[in-house]
């Protein structure tokens, strides 16, 4: 029992990353009808927003500390971040410590801007081209973004720790009345899962309860009619592209403490996210979330020792296997609508 709960928890944090990326992909596909292979790169850019912010915050100047001596007896030179000078030592240190959550504020405008520029500058010209061309041009864009990041940040993983308060694990088993020590789970992963759920909820609420969201939903259903009503649907879809980029970026920001970012992390997630979108059903937002979480949990169950002993290697292939089975038995995916991307 404790094993099962642990695996579900394990699956949920990775699954929520899949779900967030797949949500963005589906938003873009549902609104603009574009298959965006650069979405993984947006996830990666989000992660590097966190890296950038923590670097900006730790920009330091050197001061001579008279109270300490180095081994030669001279006064010690200490690097003091500027934020310490501005906000005082305790607040400054706290800001640096909380750089990853703070990056959320930093990443939202940056990612929306990147998304809007991408849509207006490049993808706009590909609406009338075949899907294969869209896949290819965004694939090229992903390579370019990836290489730019690699040039500035290097090819190695950059550790970006979570705030001190969230480092370590807590006893999840004791919380739900099981033996203490049976389920130990890192704080940050729970935070990630909750964050993902809040973000998903926010996107759905935005689409469901605002006028803007209503127009967007109407445009997803019938773009032409909405346009005929005198609404500039293209501009709203551009904004949705920006929001989708921001969702991917935030998924990346919060994922940095779990997995130190490197320049090709986006590609690794992209392949699986596409599988998630297809399993969930092209164009279905709830389907993307459901499929993301289900596949994440499935993956973590498949990496249990007992399962691997029984079916060696299953942990590597279970997602793809599930995708193949679902595509062949339910061609529209779990919750796909009729008439979307059918041949």
């Amino acid at each position, binding site marked *: 029992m404790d094993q099962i709960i642990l695996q579900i928890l394990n699956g949920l944090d990775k699954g929520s990353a899949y779900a967030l990326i797949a949500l963005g992909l589906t938003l873009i596909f549902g609104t603009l009808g574009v298959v965006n292979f650069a979405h993984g790169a947006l996830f990666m850019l989000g992660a590097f927003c966190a890296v950038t912010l923590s670097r900006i915050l730790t920009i330091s100047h050197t001061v001579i500390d008279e109270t300490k001596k180095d081994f030669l007896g001279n006064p010690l030179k200490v690097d003091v971040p500027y934020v310490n000078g501005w906000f005082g030592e305790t607040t400054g240190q706290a800001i640096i410590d909380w750089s990853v959550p703070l990056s959320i504020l930093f990443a939202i405008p940056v990612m929306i801007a990147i998304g809007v520029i991408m849509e207006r500058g490049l993808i706009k010209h590909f609406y009338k081209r075949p899907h294969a061309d869209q896949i290819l041009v965004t694939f090229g864009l992903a390579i370019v973004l990836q290489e730019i990041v690699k040039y500035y940040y290097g090819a190695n993983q950059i550790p970006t720790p979570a705030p001190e308060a969230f480092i370590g694990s807590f006893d999840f088993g004791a919380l739900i009345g099981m033996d203490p020590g049976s389920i130990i789970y890192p704080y940050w992963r729970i935070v990630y899962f909750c964050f993902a759920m809040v973000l998903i909820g926010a996107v759905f609420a935005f689409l469901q309860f605002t006028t803007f969201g209503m127009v967007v939903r109407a445009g997803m259903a019938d773009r032409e009619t909405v346009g005929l009503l005198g609404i500039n649907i293209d501009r709203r879809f551009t904004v949705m592209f920006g929001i989708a980029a921001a969702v991917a970026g935030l998924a990346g920001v919060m994922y940095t403490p779990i997995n130190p970012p490197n320049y090709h992390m986006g590609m690794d997630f992209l392949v699986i996210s596409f599988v998630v979108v297809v399993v969930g059903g092209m164009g279905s937002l709830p389907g993307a979330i459901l499929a993301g979480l289900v596949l994440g949990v499935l993956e973590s169950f498949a990496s249990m020792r007992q399962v691997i002993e029984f079916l060696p290697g299953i942990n590597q292939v279970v997602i793809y*296997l599930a995708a193949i089975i679902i595509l062949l038995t339910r*061609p529209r995916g779990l919750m796909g609508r009729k008439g979307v*991307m059918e*041949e």
Partner: protein
Amino acid sequence: MLGLSKKDASLLITVAVLVALAPIFLNPFPENSALSQFNAGYPDLMQRFVIFGIFAIGFNILFGLTGYLSFGHAAFLGAGSYAGVWMLKLLTINVIPAILISTVVAGLFAILIGYISLRRSGIYFSILTLAFAQMSFALAASVLTPITGGETGLQTALNDPRILDGANEGGNIPAPNFFGLEMGDSLQVSFAGWLWTFNAGYYVSGIIMLISFYVAIRIFRSPFGIMLRAIKSNQQRLNYTGLNTRPYMLACFVISGMYAGLAGGLMVAMDPLAGAERMQWTASGEVVLMTILGGVGTLIGPVLGAGLIKYFENIFSKINSNLLHKWFSFLPDGLEDFVVTIIYPFIGKGWHLTLGLMFMGVIIFLPGGLVELGQRISRSLSKNKNDAAEHKPAE
């Protein structure tokens, strides 16, 4: 000639001449000159030109003719490589069985994957092939280690049985050969500062490449090829006329997979080592890049694209900042640093950036790739002479 039209025959002959003389004109700069590092006429790279040319020709038969974008073609290359190494290990060090068996194995593998993947089309087909390729990669790197050598890769060893060759004489691992002609053997000719290397392995792959190029031309011109094009332009209409397109697609997919397997077999024939990373989806992406850069659906395009990318990968990536400073040393100091700073991200280790930009440029402005570029240039040159320029679609 050989059942080809005059135009195709001249294309084939041109390619044959180019392949035969490649060691000479790929080394345009004398050996000790400053530009000699742009020479591409060394055996290893030339072999890659033709082998990836075969791979791209095969991919183009699928994508160019039917429009089905497979993102998992490297799985067949990998399967072919493994089969080839096993032949070299078990049967004989002669490359012929290795190449044949790798083609056959990749074909069987393609039947299996194609039968399932081809039930869907469009993006779903791309995702299915991608999923299969990633599965093969993951399995080859982990569970199938006894067969594939896992992450270290599979290679020939001293104590391999090699039934047909008999016992191992001497203490060296035998090199793959073609009835005694070792693939690594080269004839070096030095002529007034130029050094030309005529490599046995290159010519073996080159001849096989010409044969597969010929077969590709025949497929393009055959009723079968016309049927595949019909699938690309409107599959639904074909279905409505009562035609079952599935067998045609499967045949096309298998042929394409066999080309990839052939390329894999040749790769291990040149260098008997096969690793799992050959199956990774980035490798599949590479052949997509090659085909698109050269020109989708054209005969010669994929070969050009393969050559271009491999040239970039091997030559451009070697340029470092010292060399750049040397080249631009004629500029004033500040300007020199400035120019080098601007150019540096695009070359050397950053050549992928150039590749990505080039690829995007081709998709945006030149959907027909390099071949279309050539056609446009030649058309604009001949426009003045001949106003009634023929507007044939890219072939």
